[in-house]
């Protein structure tokens, strides 16, 4: 069980970026250098300028690039969890006759092929986040639930699948089979 002091400890985003490859120099400047070096490799000013290509290749910091890709992956996952959680909660709480939440789901999933995959891969975290949103929304509407009811609600939300939320036709259109799925 967390002690009071642990609970009060502030959470800084810095904690997520304590990699050794960021421990020296100006991180932003180094990232810019990598950007420039990669651009020079992709579009060299003179194809025959082997010295310039060699110099650009030497400047590539593979550790930093791997780390940057990893950070992007984390960002995408966080975005997927946050957005999918919100969309699940909206769908659960939608009482409109036209079910407007369905349109938002379709727009979100259809924005790029990576989003349906991200939604699938991060589903358990997304439903947990959705349960928090649902409880908060109910509380704001004056529906106070005790811990037992909250747990029951979270359990029910947690057991939802994409198939429970979207019509089969939408799923067939937006989701691909595992062999067809392309990574984002």
């Amino acid at each position, binding site marked *: 069980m967390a002690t009071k002091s642990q609970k009060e400890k502030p959470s800084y985003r810095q904690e997520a970026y304590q990699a050794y490859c960021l421990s020296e120099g100006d991180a932003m400047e180094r990232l810019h250098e990598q950007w420039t070096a990669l651009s020079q490799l992709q579009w060299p000013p003179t194809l025959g300028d082997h010295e310039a290509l060699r110099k650009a290749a030497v400047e590539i910091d593979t550790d930093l690039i791997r780390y940057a890709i990893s950070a992007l992956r984390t960002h995408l996952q966080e975005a997927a969890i946050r957005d999918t959680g919100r969309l699940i909660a909206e769908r*659960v709480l939608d009482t409109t006759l036209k079910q407007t939440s369905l349109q938002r789901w379709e727009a979100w999933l259809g924005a790029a092929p990576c989003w349906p995959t991200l939604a699938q*891969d*991060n*589903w358990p975290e997304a439903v947990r986040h959705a349960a928090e949103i649902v409880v908060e929304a109910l509380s704001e509407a004056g529906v106070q639930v005790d811990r037992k009811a909250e747990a029951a609600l979270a359990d029910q939300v947690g057991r939802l*699948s994409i198939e*429970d*939320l979207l019509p*089969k036709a939408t799923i067939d259109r937006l989701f691909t*089979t595992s062999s067809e799925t392309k990574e984002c």
Partner: protein
Amino acid sequence: MSMNLRTSVKHRRGSPAGSQATPANPSNPEAPPALPALREHIADLRVRAEAAHRQTEIGLPLPATDDPMVPVFQTPVPAGDILTSDRDVQKREEKIRSVLCERGPRRLLGAVAGPELAEALNDLYRTHPNFVEAIDLVVGEERLARQRGTALCGLRILLTSAPGIGKTEFSQALAAKLGVPMIVISMSAAQSSSSLAGSEVFWGNSRPGQVWESLIQGTHANPLIVLDELEKAPSNWGDPAAALYQLLEPRTSVQFTDKSVPWLAVDASRINWVATSNEITSLHEAIVSRFVVINAGAPPEEQLRGLIQSLYGMLLAEYGLIEQFPTHLDRQSENALLGGSIRDAKRLLRSALGLALRTGARELVIASLNPPATQRRIGFV
């Protein structure tokens, strides 16, 4: 392209979506069961929270968190009038459907039979001794309901007596003891059955009646509806009591349709009804036969003395005067109030308290029940 997400994602990196999910309804893939079930659960929470809020407001005990809930309409809600081209009708239907979706089909069952309810009902013998027969009936129904493990539902009592005996007040006390909401419908003011069963959908100002509203917008499946002064329902136009033929018949009230929402049948069979009437000869035999008729009658002198004391105590408590006036009414004042009805007693006690407050007196002076007629004539000679 069709696929089974649960199967396909099982082998993927990360967590599988829906791996723990309940299976979708194979007969109707467009309406899987988990989402409607969850929405119903949330609607139940909303109804419970609203009931707790309303009960607190009117000083009734809070409903228990495990009080049973029962459906008052079937889901999925059937289609409405798809042939109508009237946009107002369509918009109104959309709003009603939205309310149905938000509030869900289930409502609380109040008055769950058990020793606690029996004890609360027994208290009525003390506070309303002239309604012994009615209380006996309710207590008997409670025992039967307890035997079946259910709640008190479907009471149909017609209280008849001379005016001023306290029929409406008894109904209020009964609702409070049952712990269910009470809706009073003054039948003398009703011009048609629309107050009970809604107005026809073709009227521009069509709206549901109080039965539909109490079940759909309310929190309980078994509220107490009081039909006050049933015999005074006008008979020269319309028939305000017409809807009662269906509503008071257990078999037909299960599928009651309000005229304003003809596409949705609601279960009104659990509603508890108490009608009051000063006499029953003017009531249609078919209506009377649907009730258990109980003649309340005037209480005997000793009971009336008790009632007067109880009324006096309630008035003191209501106006915060317990410290200022004696807690017990003296014998002389009691005697002065014996000649009239309970309504008269209440009126005279209020007047006496008002007068005492104005004059700063600590003793009540009860005015005469029959003041002498004025000697001065007014009018044309």
